[in-house]
C-alpha cells in the first residue's frame, strides 16, 4: 500500500445535521455516480446496464467517472485475486466520502465458482478487503439486478424504496 493512504475509521460523522442530512441524503441518492471497477464477466453485465436497454442513467447514475475521487459508489464486479486486492483497497481509500460499495456477482460476494480445495489466488469475497453495502448474487447477475442494487442503495440512503415491489404490501 502506498504511504499516503489512511485507514477509514469506522466512526460516524461527528456533526449531525438533522433535517439537512436527510435533504443531503436525498440529493445523494438521486445522483449516485458509479466507478467503473469491472474486473471480469460481471463487468460486461455492468456495461450492459449502462447501455441503451437497461439505462442506468435514468436514476442519475450516468456519469461513470473513471477517477475514484469523483465517484460515489464502487461496483466491484468480478473476482478478487491476491494481486488485485491492494489495488481495490487503494481505490476505496481514494474515494471521497460518503462512499458505498456494491459487490456485484458471486465472485465479489464470496469468491464465486473459483473456490476449491487448495486454491491459492482468489480472495473469497471483496468484503474481506473493503466494507460492502449491497450484495448482488448471480453469475453474472442480470442488469436488472444491478438496477435493483441501485434502488436498494437509494433505499439505504433515504429510507424510502422508490418502486415498491409487490411483496412489500404487508
Amino acid at each position, binding site marked *: 500500500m502506498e504511504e499516503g493512504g489512511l485507514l477509514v475509521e469506522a466512526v460516524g460523522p461527528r456533526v449531525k445535521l438533522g433535517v439537512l442530512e436527510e435533504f443531503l441524503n436525498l*440529493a445523494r441518492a*438521486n*445522483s449516485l455516480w458509479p466507478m467503473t471497477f469491472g474486473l471480469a464477466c460481471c463487468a460486461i453485465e455492468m456495461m450492459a446496464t449502462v447501455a441503451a436497454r437497461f*439505462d442506468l442513467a*435514468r436514476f442519475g447514475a450516468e456519469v461513470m467517472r473513471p477517477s475514484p*475521487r469523483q465517484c460515489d459508489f464502487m461496483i466491484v464486479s468480478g473476482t478478487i485475486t491476491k494481486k488485485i486486492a491492494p489495488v481495490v483497497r487503494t481505490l476505496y481509500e481514494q474515494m471521497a466520502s460518503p462512499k458505498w460499495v456494491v459487490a456485484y456477482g458471486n465472485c465479489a460476494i464470496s469468491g464465486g465458482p473459483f473456490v476449491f480445495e487448495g486454491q491459492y489466488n482468489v480472495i473469497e469475497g471483496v468484503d474481506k478487503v473493503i466494507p460492502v453495502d449491497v450484495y448482488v448474487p448471480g453469475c453474472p447477475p442480470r442488469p436488472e439486478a444491478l438496477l435493483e442494487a441501485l434502488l436498494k442503495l437509494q433505499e439505504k440512503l433515504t429510507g424510502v424504496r422508490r418502486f415498491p415491489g409487490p411483496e412489500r404490501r404487508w
Partner: protein
Amino acid sequence: MRLWLKRLYRLYFQSDPFKAGLCLLAALTGVSILLGLAWLLGKALWDLGISAWGVDFLRLVLGALWVLLVLFGNALLLVWVERKVAGHMQWRIGPKEVGPFGLLQSIADAVKLMGKELVSPRYVDKPLYLLAPFLIFMPCVVVLLVIPFDPHLQIRDINVGIVLILAFSSLTSIAVFMAGWGSVNKYSLLGGMRSISQQIAYEIPMVLSIVPVVMLSGSLSLKGIVEAQKVPYLLLQPVAFFIYLISAVAEVNRTPFDLPEAESELVAGYHIEYSGMRFAMFFLAEYTNLFIVSALLTTFFLAGYKGPWLPGWAWFFIKTYLVVFVIMWFRWTFPRVRFDQLLNFSWKFLIPLAMLNLVVTGGVLKL
C-alpha cells in the same frame, strides 16, 4: 395525402434527433420565462427614473445578479440538456426519475457535490491546487460582462470588448495547467500540458477568424458588431465561421478535442485529484465556457439579438442554445483526435486558411 402526413409525423416527431431538439425547446422555454421576468424588472426599474449615481449603482447590482443567474442557471440547465441530448442520441432516455423529465437532476448533482468530502492528497502543491478551481471561473465572469444579450441588456459595453474577451479567455489555460501541475500526478500533468499547447494553438485561428468580422463591422465593441450586421456574417464569412466554430470547440476542451480530460487515455486528465465542490467548479466552468463561446459565435456571426417580432434576448438565447446543441452533437458523434494530429490541424491547416480568408476579405473590402 394523409399517408404522407402520417409519414412526416412518424419521421420527425418520433425520431431521436427531434426528441433531442425537444429537450432544447424545453430548455429555451424555461430560460425565456426567467429572462422575461428579468427584463421586466429591468425595464420597470429603468422607468422609475432614479438619480444618475443611483442608477449606475443599481445597474451594477443588477448586472452582478444577472451574471450569477446566467452562470449558474445556465450550468444547471446545460448539465440536464447535455445528458438528455446524449441519451436521445444514444437510443436511450437520460435522467428520468428525478423530478419530471429528470429536470431536478442537476440540482441533485449540485447538492450532492456540495456534500462530498474535499479530499486533498498529501503531496499536492497547496496554493496551486486550491486556487485552480476558482481561477478557472473568473474569466467567465468577466467575459459575461460585455456580451450583449439584448440592446438594453449588456452590463458594460466596452469599446474594445473583443480585446477584453480574448485576453481573459486565455486565462483558463493557466488555471487548467495549475490544476494539472498542482495535483502531483503524472496523468494530470500530461493533461495540463496538453491543454496548454492545445489552447495556444487554437487561440490564433480564433483571433484570425474574428478579424474579418471586425473589419466588416468596423468596430471592436460587441454591440457595434451586432448592430453592423444587416446580414448575418455567417453568410458573408462562412470560412471564418467554421474556423471559429472549430477553434471554439478546441478552446473549451470538448470532444473531439477533449484530450486534456481524455477519459480512456488519461483517466480524467487534469481534474483527477479533485473531488466534491472543487470538481463541481471545473464542471461548471466547462459548461459556462461552452455557453460563452456559443454566445460569442452568435454575436459575431449570427447577428446576436437581431430578429423579427420576438424580443432581442429571446433571439439571442435561441441562437446561442442552437450553437450549444450543435457543439454537443459533435461530442456524441466524433471520436477523439490524436494530440499531434490536433496540433497539426491547427498550425498547418487552420491558421493558413484563416490568414487566406483575412487577405481575401481585406482585398474585397478594398475594392
